[in-house]
């Protein structure tokens, strides 16, 4: 029975394209001979309408505001940090000069208002072309840090794996090592957090890749 219901409700070859759905969603009465006979397209139009002009409940409003704030702080491409008022030009220039990598997209648990002046974490390894799949990541310890958060990201900067460590190194589990296909360009970076979860240090994004049989 459920299998039959699945086949009855799933999209067929005549179902509408996004552009056609959009046109009908914009009309008060979405009249179309196919849609009038298709549960799938009717549902898609209803969902699209609700996405474009949603009606929120009170509980949803609060949740959406919070999620929206988190997105604003840790968007997928743009990382931003609100600096303390009064931060001098010199301090800002210095931060730029050392190439501070701003807030880790994976660290959205760190509220931006809690971000304190952070230091750049140096000497992170491994880097570059590696003859073997790395097992250990290491970096310079940050005095104020209580723990560290490590992220491995791909070319689209989508975090592929994240891990945490209390010390200035992290042993990679098999699932992280499995990401390192031969020749695949990857980056990793580390954020240092203090006991209250505030960002106190960030590294640059370190490029690396596994190149079997040869290293730089």
């Amino acid at each position, binding site marked *: 029975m459920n299998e039959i219901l*699945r086949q009855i409700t799933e999209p067929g070859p005549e179902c509408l394209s996004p552009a056609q759905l*959009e046109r009908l969603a914009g009309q008060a009465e979405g009249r179309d001979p196919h849609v009038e006979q298709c*549960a799938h397209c009717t549902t898609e139009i209803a969902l699209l309408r609700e996405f474009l002009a949603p009606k929120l409940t009170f509980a949803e409003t609060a949740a959406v505001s919070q999620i929206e704030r988190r997105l604003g702080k840790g968007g997928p*491409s743009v990382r931003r940090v609100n600096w303390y008022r009064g931060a001098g030009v010199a301090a800002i220039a210095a931060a730029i000069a050392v190439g501070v990598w701003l807030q880790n997209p994976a660290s959205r648990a760190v509220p931006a208002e809690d971000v304190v002046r952070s230091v750049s974490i140096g000497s992170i390894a491994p880097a570059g072309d590696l003859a073997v799949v790395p097992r250990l990541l290491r970096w310079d310890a940050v005095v104020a840090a209580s723990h560290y958060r490590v992220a491995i990201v791909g070319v689209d900067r989508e975090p592929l794996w994240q891990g945490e460590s209390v010390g200035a190194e992290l042993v990679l589990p098999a699932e992280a090592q499995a990401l390192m296909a031969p020749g695949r360009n990857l980056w990793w970076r580390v954020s240092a957090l203090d006991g209250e979860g505030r960002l106190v240090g960030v590294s640059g994004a370190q490029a690396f890749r596994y190149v079997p049989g040869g290293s730089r």
Partner: protein
Amino acid sequence: MACFLDTNLLLYSISRDPAKSFGILFRGCDCAVLIHNGLNSGPVCLRVMTALSDEELIARYQEAGGRPLGTPFAEELFRRYYSRVALWCFRVAGDRDGATDLAQDVFAKAWSHLDSFRAESRFSTWLFMIARNHCFNALRSKARLREDSLDAESFTDQTGQAPGFDSDLERQQLLTLGRSLMVSELTPLESQVMTLHFAQEMPLSAIARLLRLDNPSGAKAYIVSAKRKLKSALSRLQGADRP
């Protein structure tokens, strides 16, 4: 107007090497300069940016060669949809953390495909499709369906007997008939609940949130009622078929 360096300065990291590429944005005067490998974008005025349509922002983004110099246009574009994507993901996930994860994934996917956006539909529809597909796939892969779906047995219990699709109806005929009954016999909401549950394998709880069902028994009541209607319509048709 003077720019205040100490007012809510935002630094944009616009490439993988932030020492080479960065932007400085001054909220005091709503302008930004982006620097990439020693080249700069010239001032980008954010006030003007907010007046641009979605499609104009994408055009500027693509004219700037995508990332990194087009980043502010894309960011303005995505920011317009934060609340809609957040709500969609919240309705799918049912909690704020799960929704944040989903929403971040949605924007990451949109980012990675923005260069190839071809304006075949509006940006809003394109983003909806990404959100929809990503969230439905995430739900499926979590196999949450098993946790709160109606299985065939529970349906049999509630309706007293197994669904009456007759094996002597040809399969294709049955499907064609079923599709038309979905529309002719069911209310629009019943038909939508059935589609989301059976074709998209969505858990009932997520369906109730997505379709804003506020009856106490949520989506389950719609499925029970829809199945009963379908079964009775089929029985009617089969009875009419028999001599």
